[in-house]
């Protein structure tokens, strides 16, 4: 079934740890995105990719990095987590056919807490 997956769903980790948030999609989409969202607040685009080996920074500056080695996979990495990184991270993809071309499909999110 076509879907977009994020793991882990919840992560509690100590300051200074390296973490990787996984995002995979079986939608066949070429574009993928990472957003940061605090509860009940707006979404901020932190990274996007329009294809394999392309990554760009979004509108909100982030200390995280991303890679896009495979079409379906778009992991986000924090080399050294800090409490200020505590947030919800949403992954999305787009690139469907016809009127759905620019529609973004979202994963369930990863809620990260850094102690």
């Amino acid at each position, binding site marked *: 079934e076509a879907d977009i997956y994020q793991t882990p769903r919840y992560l509690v980790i100590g300051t200074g740890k390296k973490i990787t948030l996984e995002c995979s999609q079986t939608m066949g989409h070429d574009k993928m995105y990472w957003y940061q969202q605090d509860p009940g607040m*707006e979404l901020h685009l932190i990274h*996007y990719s329009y294809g394999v080996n392309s990554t760009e920074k*979004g509108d909100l500056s982030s200390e995280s990095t991303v890679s896009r080695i495979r079409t379906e996979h778009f992991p986000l990495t924090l080399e050294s987590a800090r409490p200020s990184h505590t947030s919800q991270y949403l992954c999305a993809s787009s690139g469907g056919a016809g009127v759905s071309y620019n529609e973004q499909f979202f994963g369930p999110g990863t809620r990260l807490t850094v102690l």
Partner: protein
Amino acid sequence: AQRVTQPEKLLSVFKGAPVELKCNYSYSGSPELFWYVQYSRQRLQLLLRHISRESIKGFTADLNKGETSFHLKKPFAQEEDSAMYYCAPLSINAGGTSYGKLTFGQGTILTVHP
């Protein structure tokens, strides 16, 4: 840079009352706009897109280029409409490319009381 404004952070109505969630954008050219909805403990999902001129779950949204608005309306609100709603125009850079990027508004939390 494009901006999108949803002036109401919170909106409360009673069941059966009409509801309008406001969205204003600053944009040059012909925008492509979306409304997204996030129900409690569910994923963010598309509610409707303006190019389809559709009605989803009784909601409609009309693009008013003169007022640069894309308000979301429903004549009779239901309790299950309680959710967070985001207006999101497609972002176009100076070169006319979007890469499918959306700019999300601040969101409006709609509560429909019984």
